[in-house]
């Protein structure tokens, strides 16, 4: 009995510490635009949400998708088109982009989830390449030019999003809602079943779970949230281009997630922040960005196998000596 109470005390202690860290993190994000360039921060938030959505699939379900650019970039196109060409308000554009990504996720997931491991990754990559070529050809994406000059408009007809702080806090709100949704999913019974599928698929089946349906649901949720990130990004940068649907973008989100630590809530956020910062720093230095990120990635894989945050958790846990914390 004494053991369990001690463990419970530790658990509530670490839970309190976590909440304190979350509160500090949110406070820092609220204060950030007074110290940093808002567009840079918003880019970070969009990619962080994208990486978190990706992590729902890789980290918590154990599925490595190589096609997530489809949802991110696709949603950006849908949102940009709806806002610019149809004159929709920003919230409706984001909603459309997100819903579009969900539909794309349903289609891609339907074909991919029946395969395992590398075949799963290959199917997602193949379908994402098909979507890329569709975007190159389709008139509404305007080919190489992309959809430029997307107006940010007024949120709910009230808030003028052309004001840097207004758009920043809108993006921050979307980011927090998205991450909160993922947190809820991960800590729900559904999330527990996803984790059991990640750990041992055939065992999950023998306990009565139709693994295929759970995987598809996780895939669609991940795609939807990736779409939310992509649609938001289109409003931030006021354009949607082919860059966001390329396979390099699918690779980048894998990099961010692995770098930060898969299967942790904070890992992908840290990973995305790091990669975006790096890209911005290197862009002005003249040093080739891809080589630098590749090198950093290699170092991380060799030194911190669990990713930065994963490694920190592992160190903390071995020093405390209790069970794994998700």
């Amino acid at each position: 009995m004494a053991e369990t109470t001690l463990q419970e005390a530790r658990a509530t202690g670490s839970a309190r510490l976590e909440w304190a860290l979350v509160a500090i993190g949110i406070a820092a994000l609220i204060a950030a635009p007074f110290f940093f360039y808002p567009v840079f921060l918003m880019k970070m938030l969009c990619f962080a949400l994208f990486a978190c959505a990706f992590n729902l699939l890789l980290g918590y379900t154990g599925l490595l998708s190589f096609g997530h650019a489809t949802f991110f970039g696709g949603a950006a196109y849908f949102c940009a088109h709806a806002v610019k060409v149809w004159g929709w308000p920003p919230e409706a554009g984001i909603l459309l982009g997100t819903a579009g990504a969900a539909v794309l996720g349903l289609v891609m997931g339907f074909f991919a989830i029946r395969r395992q491991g590398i075949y799963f990754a290959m199917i997602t990559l193949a379908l994402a390449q098909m979507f890329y070529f569709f975007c190159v050809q389709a008139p509404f994406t305007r080919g190489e030019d992309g959809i430029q000059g997307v107006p940010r408009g007024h949120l709910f007809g009230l808030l003028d999003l052309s004001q840097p702080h207004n758009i920043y806090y809108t993006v921050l709100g979307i980011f927090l809602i998205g991450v909160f949704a993922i947190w809820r999913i991960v800590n729900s019974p559904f999330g527990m079943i996803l984790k059991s599928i990640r750990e041992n698929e055939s065992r999950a089946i023998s306990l009565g779970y139709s693994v295929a349906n759970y995987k598809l649901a996780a895939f669609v949720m991940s795609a939807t949230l990736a779409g939310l990130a992509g649609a938001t990004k289109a409003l931030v940068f006021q354009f949607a281009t082919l860059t966001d649907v390329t396979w390099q973008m699918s690779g980048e989100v894998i990099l961010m997630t692995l770098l930060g630590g898969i299967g942790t809530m904070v890992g992908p956020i840290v990973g995305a922040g790091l990669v975006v910062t790096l890209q911005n720093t290197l862009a002005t230095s003249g040093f080739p960005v891809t080589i630098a990120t590749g090198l950093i990635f290699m170092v991380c894989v060799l030194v911190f196998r669990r990713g930065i945050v994963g490694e920190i958790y592992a160190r903390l846990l071995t020093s405390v000596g209790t069970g794994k914390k998700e």
Partner: protein
Amino acid sequence: MNAILEITPILEITNVTRRFAGLVAVNDVSFTLKQGEILGVIGPNGAGKTTLVSLISGTLPPTLGDIAFEGHSIVKLPAYQRARLGIGRTFQIMRPFPGLSVLDNVAVGALFGHGGGESELAKAREQAREQLRFVGLEKFSDQRADELGGPSRKRLELAKALAMQPKVLLCDEVMAGLNHVEIDEVIDVLKRVRERGISILVIEHVIKAIKSLSDRLLVLHHGEKIADGEPDTVLSNPQVVEAYLGRKRA
């Protein structure tokens, strides 16, 4: 044994055959498992015992034959639906969810039928804790499953299968590698499982254990059923002695 014998058997296996590329792992096997019964299945290595369990649980489809659960054919149902109907199994090669805690390993089994809220998770964990207490693993609740030793993993297999509240439990060598004391404890657990009204099919190599546990024994040899009946009668059957016991003694 004065177990409640109802008219419909809980499991009815009719002329089931399973072939693997030329090899007949299970050959035209028929038998029934009655409500509340403990049926022991023995046979030499490679006799087809695990294959039989996989055919019933739905992990493998049979090449021929029919399997009925509570009077209804289930051969066309996928494995997860059979599990939901109430067929629980353990795995000879233990399959925990290594990265989850022991408690959560069992809670996953208890989650089915619950809603989506977080309070449901707490309820499932509470049920899981009960199952862990039942099999004597409660003190390991918060450890990761892959930190458990072999004997404890066997118990974890049992707790996980029990958490889904099965009507039939298929045990594939849950006593292998255990010492005498541990074997007696598992026998005790299985007897208490049966007292809950759960029918059990138990595969085991330890003759003494299976004899004291089973109401009836079934012997497989080269995929064929060579005996089925009272444990004492079956174990003194010359064919069985030759096929199985004889070889062991030699």
